[in-house]
């Protein structure tokens, strides 16, 4: 006689040390097996899209830092400014473009380091957290010396960047790159060959390629499922067309593949930073743009590659000082909804590893 089992509905979150913020998941369990996962979002909804309609474009930059993906503030600024500059036809000086490219890659490293550290804690490796934050503090120091901020920078302005980098900054940045490449090898030594780590991640939480495409997953999550798509290559902005870098792609689509893709991305970021530092021309850092910027009437949709994926901004202007409507296409939002597909059928103990591996930031999901 078969054992009679009952479904159990488990509420996970909003306060849970591994939900990376305030995500609530309603999980239907059959014994240890996950039958269904329904993410409940909105616990960090800060109505940024509405607030942006009442603020000028320059004020919106600081709002984009905070209200969207706060781990990658510069990527948000770039996303907003790409829309503003495309609609306004604003040309950015060459030096500013190279600086932006370099800073975006530093931001990618900082963001991936937070992801790796917190994911390490989730699956029981506290050392990774301490190591990652050690390196992240160095990136943050570089940011602080040039932009003045640790987390929210408001460094990119319409038509350029706010300030030039201070003297000796490039040498420090390159020294960090040399150091960081060795650290990446250390992370690999700590995690990649570790049997416990491999058992917890290899073959766990597979996202098939077709499902990833259908659900609109992007960024490292999609690239780990074999989709070789990167906005930096497909629709280059700033100086990404002029630097050499590879898009890491894995076919497996499991947690380990997502980990390997992000690790490789950090290495590619270092490569891009080196090229930027080499090619950085002297000159102007900011075009002459009025402080009360008025954009012509019209609408535009632009996309950029944030550390989490394809970050799109749909901007409608009626010719005033403020946008008429801003719609943010958040990568973490789309990736989160791949979650219920990925998790179905796995054990309850794999939930945390899977959730951590897709790297969501709740501010990006809820906005």
């Amino acid at each position: 006689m078969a054992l009679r089992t009952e479904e159990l509905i488990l509420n996970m979150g909003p306060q849970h040390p591994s939900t990376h913020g305030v995500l609530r998941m309603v999980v239907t369990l059959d014994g240890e097996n996950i039958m269904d996962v329904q993410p409940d979002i909105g616990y960090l909804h800060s109505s940024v899209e509405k607030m942006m309609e009442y603020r000028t474009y320059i004020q919106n930059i600081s709002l984009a830092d905070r209200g969207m993906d706060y781990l990658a503030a510069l990527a948000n600024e770039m996303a907003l400014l790409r829309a503003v500059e495309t609609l306004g036809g604003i040309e950015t000086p060459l030096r500013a473009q190279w600086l932006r490219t370099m800073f975006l890659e530093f931001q990618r490293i900082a963001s991936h380091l937070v992801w790796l550290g917190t994911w390490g804690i989730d699956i029981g490796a506290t050392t990774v957290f301490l190591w990652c934050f050690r390196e992240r503090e160095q990136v943050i120091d570089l940011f602080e010396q040039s932009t003045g901020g640790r987390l929210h920078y408001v460094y990119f302005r319409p038509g350029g960047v706010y300030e030039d980098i201070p003297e000796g900054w490039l040498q420090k940045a390159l020294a960090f790159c040399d150091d960081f490449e060795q650290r990446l090898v250390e992370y690999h030594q700590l995690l990649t060959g570790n049997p416990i780590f491999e058992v917890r991640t290899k073959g766990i939480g597979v996202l098939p390629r077709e499902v990833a495409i259908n659900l609109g997953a992007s960024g490292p999550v999609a690239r780990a499922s074999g989709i070789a798509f990167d906005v930096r290559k497909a629709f280059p902005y700033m100086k990404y067309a002029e630097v050499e870098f590879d898009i890491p792609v894995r076919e497996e689509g499991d947690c380990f593949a997502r980990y390997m893709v992000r690790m490789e991305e950090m290495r590619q970021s270092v490569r891009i930073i080196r090229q930027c530092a080499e090619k950085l021309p002297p000159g102007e850092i900011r075009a002459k743009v009025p402080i009360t910027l008025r954009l012509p009437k019209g609408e535009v949709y632009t996309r950029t590659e944030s550390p989490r994926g394809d970050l799109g901004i749909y901007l409608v202007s009626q010719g005033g000082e403020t946008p008429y409507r801003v719609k943010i296409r958040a990568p973490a939002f789309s990736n989160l909804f791949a979650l219920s597909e990925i998790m179905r059928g796995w054990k309850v103990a794999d939930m945390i590893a899977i959730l951590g591996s897709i790297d969501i930031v709740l501010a990006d999901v809820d906005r």
Partner: protein
Amino acid sequence: MLTSIEHLLNWGRASSLWPLTFGLACCAIEMMGAFAGRFDLDRIGVIPRATPRQADLIIVAGRATIKIAPIVRRLWEQMPEPKYVISMGSCATCGGPFYYDNYSILKGIDAVIPVDVYVPGCPPRPEALYEGVLKLQEKIMKEPFLRRRARLVASA
């Protein structure tokens, strides 16, 4: 006699503040930075705990929406006495940059739970959080809870 016992108990309370790991928004990243290697809040006895039942400090790090407010309140209620609250960042303190034109953010977490120390900044640096914890320790050291109880017993 009462004062010195009280001093000893207060010293014990102040030097082992266990906060709840509860990050709301951007300030949580700086809070994590404060727990990590460079700043290392463990040095002054602040060790994060994952459940409110074991925590005696809640650091409200980040903006609280109207949707999350009852949950923060419930977490605070689940913590055993004595319990303390640090409001970290402008958003938790007063709504911060989300004060105007906003329908979803609570204008200050002190609307739902009593706050002991406010740490300003957007987001505050880990040093600022450190200062906040030190200020809270100062406050705990001065707490006359035994004498207050003795007075209550005497008057009853």
